[in-house]
């Protein structure tokens, strides 16, 4: 029961944040030169003034901004984000269509980045200032400085062009019609490079964070106490240091999800993955404002949900926190 109340309260707290985001985004996009009708008319190669005025009225674009805003928010509350003229479908349908690929990419990337980053960070800290540490830390710094699009292209050169091991793009092999396990494997093969490209920078991030955190925790009094009890180094690491050192790393898991979603724009575009990132890029290029607003809404909700899950995880890990 306390958990339900907590979840409900968190949901209520999210409402003003989402509202603020959507109002801000709406007004921002209104600042843009040209609206949907201009884009439509541009696509059609021009039209007469009367027709344009009728279109405007039809889309409600002749109303004052605040009326438009109010109408938009009222519809948004019913998860109606309007019509995407580019895809000729309701925006919500387009979004749901694309969500799966992005979530798959996010989760795979975050999983690899977190597990490998934390493991490498812990190893580096255990052997601080040794050769192992220097190699790991230097790699971390280089990964941290490598833009994902550059990494993607270089991987394509090596693994697709030169070696021919992995597909250049897409989410599945076209016209192969795999089913069952073959389908899963096929999708996985398509996701290897995008996942690697997206996760490397975060891997480096978690690595550095974990290394610093382990070094800091290792200096704390209770580690000295455990040592005075006769605990060996392995025991110190696994029973005393790791759990405490993970806490600050976990806190940042949720925050990173938002930047990770941003990173998917570039990676999905390069690897032609039909996800939200690619959609965001195309919507900006094609001035599909309804879709763009929908993406902002959906990704904000995803980020808030992930933040909530992170907090739950944190509360599980830290005995000092009680949900309230």
């Amino acid at each position, binding site marked *: 029961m306390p958990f339900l109340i907590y979840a409900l309260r968190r949901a209520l707290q999210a409402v003003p944040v989402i509202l603020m985001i959507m109002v801000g985004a709406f007004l921002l996009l209104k600042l843009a030169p040209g609206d949907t009708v201009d884009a439509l008319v541009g696509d059609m190669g021009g039209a007469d003034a009367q027709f344009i005025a009728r279109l405007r009225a039809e889309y409600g674009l002749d109303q004052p901004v605040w009326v438009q805003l109010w109408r938009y928010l009222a519809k948004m509350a019913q998860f109606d984000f309007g019509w995407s003229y580019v895809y000729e479908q309701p925006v919500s349908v387009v979004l749901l269509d694309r969500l799966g690929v992005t979530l798959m990419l996010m989760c795979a990337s975050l999983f690899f980045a977190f597990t490998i980053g934390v493991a490498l960070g812990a190893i580096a800290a255990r052997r601080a200032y040794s050769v192992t540490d220097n190699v790991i830390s230097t790699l971390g710094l280089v990964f941290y400085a490598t833009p994902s699009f550059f990494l993607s292209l270089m991987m394509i050169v090596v693994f697709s062009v030169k070696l021919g091991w992995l597909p250049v793009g897409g989410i599945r092999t076209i016209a192969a019609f795999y089913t069952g396990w073959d389908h899963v494997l096929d999708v996985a093969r398509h996701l290897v490079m995008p996942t690697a490209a997206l996760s490397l920078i975060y891997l480096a991030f978690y690595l550095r964070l974990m290394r610093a955190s382990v070094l800091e925790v290792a200096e704390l009094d209770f580690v000295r106490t455990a040592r005075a009890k006769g605990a060996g180094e392995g025991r110190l690491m696994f029973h005393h240091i790791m759990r405490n050192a993970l806490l600050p790393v976990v806190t940042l898991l949720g925050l990173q999800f938002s930047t990770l979603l941003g990173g998917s*724009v570039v990676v999905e575009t390069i690897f032609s993955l039909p996800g939200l990132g690619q959609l965001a890029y195309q919507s900006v290029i094609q001035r599909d404002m309804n879709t763009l607003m929908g993406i*902002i809404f959906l990704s904000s909700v995803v980020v808030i949900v992930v933040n909530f899950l992170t907090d739950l995880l944190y509360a599980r890990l830290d005995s000092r926190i009680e949900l309230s």
Partner: protein
Amino acid sequence: MSLADPTDLPPEERRWRVFWRRYRRNRAAVLGLILLGAVVLLALLAGIYEPVDPLRRAGEPLTWPFQTWQTPLGTDQLGRDILAGILHGARISLLIGVVATVISIAIGVVIGALAGYFGGWVDDVLMRITEAFQTVPSFVLLLALVAILGSSIENIVLAIGIVSWTAPARLARAEFMSLRKREFIDAVRNLGVGDAAIIFREILPNALPPVVVYASVIMALAILLESALAFLGLGDPNYASWGNMIGQGRAVLRTAWYVCAIPGIAIVLTVLSFSLLGEGLNEVLNPRQKK
């Protein structure tokens, strides 16, 4: 009671020496400084090296590097000199890095300082706004801003500043919150010093070191963001940018991968130099970590 011997060196001079001695201890940080120096040198050379216009055709298209003195690092598919592009790109990267960081830190410090110092509803409101900015994926926001404002270099710098102020704001807020509770703030309040003077003269100088260290992270981030924008074709078309070079090189990736690889390496090294610089500064300014 004996006093500290007053025949020591004057403190000012000593401070800089201590600064440099501590910084020098970290070899990686020194390497970062050298790398950064190299990038600055590249940017300075851009005005001297021919062709001065990196967007002009300078030789046979798709000449590989080290083939001719005319174009030492080769040319792209339009015959533009890659070395010239690298030199001019260094200017853009440094410019973006510095100016966007100044904007981002300025917004962040002001918001963080107000939230951290006053607390209460001021803090609530400002933190909700920060949260909203952090919730929207920053790169999507950046795309939208650039799409709306237009892709001139000024707008790109401004947009990068606008999407990256949240982390320094949180940092500044945390610093202000902890410093506000320190006894020396009580002490000056008790002397009758006003809020503005406390924020700017007492707390800010003490809160700055971690923010300065973080500035190096923002600089690296700003350069990465700009290059990603340029890669997607949303950069300022009037300037050579490393990201743009890679974006255009993508078309000839299969045959002439060096067109992408060279500017890519330039980005990696520049960002790396800022990261290393940050590590060195961290050791100098926040010495509590080691020991």
